[in-house]
């Protein structure tokens, strides 16, 4: 099989998978709908009012996984390949105001107390990008006396107690058993209450579909044994993903071998993206 054929085959598999996943999620939501009408009282006690039956993804059992994500800010070089890959993989609008993942640049200049932070939506960085869907950090500090600088990749934290899931009036956004927070785009009413509730700015409104959107850790890929697109393209291994149930997985090793921290622990959301190498200004 030549490379083109392989690609086509891969595309076909992916389409089949996605359509299967779509039906599965829809079925899941329908189950939620039916069960929450019949047993509202019990639904109140369940934070994960998502499908009580796992979606029928061939060869995948969501009760056997516990996904988590790691970010090693020491390694990130701010190339933004992750941002570009995510946009393409997940069909995210290419403008610089809708991101499932983005990278922040923290720069502490000599004589200043707080770091200066910018990201892909900064007008200077937008101007430095030459094409739509291409993202660059402008070299704006070349003449400054930089004391310390680093990059921080950001994405949905897939919290254990997600505020977005708590506030969703319909249950369209839910926590899966394997630890991922998903949105059923066929059930979301587009009220954007979840966008407000997320303390990390991880959610946005998809104007074309009229629903909210966010990172899924590439659920369509991870349930097939693949890595999320951003992890796969990272040239320096700054993004780590895996199953915490598997003690040898990259993420288990990452958490075991590093002093990790999460963003805004005071919210009580209990994030599942673990960071290494970030500074006090990162929130």
């Amino acid at each position, binding site marked *: 099989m030549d490379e083109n054929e392989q690609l086509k085959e891969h595309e076909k598999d992916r389409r089949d998978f996605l359509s299967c996943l779509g039906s599965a999620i829809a079925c899941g939501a329908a189950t939620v709908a039916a069960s929450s009408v019949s047993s509202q009282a019990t639904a109140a006690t369940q934070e994960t009012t998502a499908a009580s039956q796992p979606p029928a993804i061939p060869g995948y059992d969501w009760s056997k996984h516990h996904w988590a994500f790691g970010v090693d800010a020491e390694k990130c070089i701010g190339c933004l390949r992750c941002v570009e890959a995510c946009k393409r993989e997940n069909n995210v609008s290419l403008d610089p105001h809708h*991101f499932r993942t983005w990278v922040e640049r923290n720069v502490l200049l000599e004589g200043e107390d707080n770091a200066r932070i910018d990201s892909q939506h900064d007008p200077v960085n937008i101007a430095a990008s030459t094409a739509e869907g291409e993202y660059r950090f402008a070299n704006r500090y070349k003449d400054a006396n930089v004391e310390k600088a680093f990059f921080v990749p950001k994405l949905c934290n897939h919290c254990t107690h997600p505020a977005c899931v*708590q506030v969703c009036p319909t249950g369209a956004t839910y926590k899966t058993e394997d630890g991922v927070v998903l949105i059923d785009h066929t059930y979301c009413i587009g*009220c954007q209450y979840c966008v407000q509730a997320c303390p990390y700015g991880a959610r946005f409104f998809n104007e074309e579909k009229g629903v909210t959107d966010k990172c899924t850790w590439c659920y369509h890929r991870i349930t097939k044994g693949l890595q999320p697109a951003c992890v796969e393209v990272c040239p320096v291994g700054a993004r780590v993903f895996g199953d915490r149930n598997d003690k040898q997985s990259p993420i288990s090793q990452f958490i075991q071998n590093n002093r990790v921290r999460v963003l805004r622990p005071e919210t009580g959301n209990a994030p599942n993206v673990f960071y290494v190498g970030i500074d006090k200004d990162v929130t």
Partner: protein
Amino acid sequence: MDAIFHASPFTGYVYPNETVIPWTVLIVVYPYLTGLVAGAFTISSLYQVFGFQQLRPVAHFALLISLCCMLTVPLPLLLHLGHPERAFNAMITPHITSAFAIFGYAAAFYIILLVLETWFVFRPHIVHQAQQQTGVFAWFYRILSLGSNDVSEKAMRYDRKWLFALAIIGIPGAHGLHGYVGFVFGSLKSREWWSSDLMPVIFLFSAIISGTALVIVLYVLSCKLRKVSVDLACLKVMAYSLWGFMMFTLLIEGVEFASLVYRGREGIEVIMEFVKGPLVVPFFILQFGVGSVLPLAVITFLIWRGTGGTALILGITGSAILVLLAVLMMRYNVVIGGQEISKTAKGLLAYHPPFFGREGLLAAGIVLVVPMILLSVIVRIFPPWEEVTA
């Protein structure tokens, strides 16, 4: 892409997704309307439940104002939703951990209560019209009477019992509904500007003053249109209520703001930057100065001098118009202001509402006019005026 979303300019650092403001002027109008509902209902209840006889000329009118505003409340929400056709999902499969899931039920319950109360209040009128009118109108009123033509003293006593009960249930209903709207904002831990236990109380009391102010303005306007004299005793009681509730609202708002500043948690620098910069005109000048202090001073002056006649009517009505503006600005400063302060606590956004479009100023303005149009129709079907209903 610019046509389907508006990215707001910012200073400092804000998250990239925050540049598209999620809740727009329609979500400013929505709590404003629910507030008017609660406030107008308060005036009606002061007469129905607590027997404030001076409020008799406006009691039924206030009930109709409350009803018309309530019927319009779903409109800004539906206009705002990405999928309005799925709005009932929240009622079919309510996700009851959501502060918003029960709103549909609470609103539906309250609309039914208002319709029932209106029916009982105007039942004598309906029966009378069903017997007097001819043709289509006779049929219309006959249907409205639901086959009950008994207006004997015994039946009226029975009706009054129902009215009293409905008005009593309506008090926690109306105020609960609006306090609940305050909770929708106050319970969010992601925004320091909203996250306050006092938010439901502030919403509630500002609601009462806005509803009272609306009843004052519309009552005076209706008297002018009907060419009858304004009942000064009634107007004075409403002005006193407005004064008292305003004092309390200002106090609570002051306490809330003082706590926010005094606690000085993370992000207070950027909040102070917001307060001293973009908030000066909408808050300090419009909401606080022109909309609150000025009408309070005017009403105080009128009471102190014992002013009467046209000067009293003009003074109170003018003050009420300013209060309506102040509460609208309060909703704007809470809803939009909260989103202009970034969740990063390191930056500010500047929201400039578009004029046209589904979530533009024009749409919001139309939503605010709808209850007035409804009211102008409904007062012809159910005349709430003293000289007609007495």
